[in-house]
């Protein structure tokens, strides 16, 4: 059970075209909020890395790099924790089916590390039942 239910609205919501430059601007906005709320550099690094992975996955795998499609980012950054949701217009996927990128036979593959990094750096990574929305939670530190 996620610490924040998926149906609970978050105060900030930004809809962007599926475009990496636009995605970076959202990333910067979120990071400025973490800075304003006094999150440590380590915490901000973890949020930046995970948000970047979620945005890239939404653009590449969810929206198949189609700039006509949208990415929606919702977030709440308060003094307790950061909660960020990233959704795309794709058909979703089953996160349980993603292979371990650290196993010897996959270590030399160039991709497949994004979800593992998010799970390593965050307190919680949860997917919607359809699998086209991810919720990232990082407790403030």
């Amino acid at each position, binding site marked *: 059970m996620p610490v924040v239910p998926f149906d609970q609205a978050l105060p900030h919501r930004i809809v962007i075209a599926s475009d*990496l*430059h636009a*995605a*970076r601007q959202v*990333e*910067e906005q979120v*990071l*400025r909020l973490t*800075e304003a709320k006094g999150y440590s*550099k*380590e915490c*901000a*690094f973890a949020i*930046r*890395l995970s948000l*970047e*992975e979620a*945005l*890239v996955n939404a653009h590449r795998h969810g929206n198949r790099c189609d700039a006509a499609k949208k990415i929606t980012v919702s977030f709440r950054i308060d003094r307790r924790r950061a909660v960020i949701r990233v959704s795309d217009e794709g058909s979703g996927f089953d996160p349980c089916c993603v292979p371990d*990128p*650290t196993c010897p036979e996959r*270590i*030399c*593959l*160039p*991709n497949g*590390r*994004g979800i*593992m*990094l998010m799970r*390593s750096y965050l307190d919680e990574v949860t997917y919607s039942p359809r699998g086209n929305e991810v919720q990232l939670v990082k407790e403030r530190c």
Partner: protein
Amino acid sequence: MAGTPDPLPLTDFQMAVEQKGEAAVVRLTGAVHMEVCDQLQKELLRLVDRPTRTLILDMSQLTFICSLGLGALVAAYVRSRRQKGAVRVVSPDPAIRAMLEVTKLVQIFPPYESVDTALAGP
């Protein structure tokens, strides 16, 4: 993660290449973010395809790298190995070193302390 670089501002990425004998030393500066990973991979593969036996990646000024950036390094490593070459990383900051450990990429990129020790390798 003492010494983690400040993630703001979102610094631009730069790379500079210096040829040292049969090695190319690539100094990476700033952040390898989602917008520059394709460019990075293209440049690294271009260098590996030249008669460069060893590619040295100086990460001492690198503040951030995403998984696509790590993928670019891996792609260069795989192509280089096929050509009997090597890719070595130098002085990643603690946050990036931790990423190499979490992903177990430290197995193929054990960090060197300096460009000179990386040049002397293995």
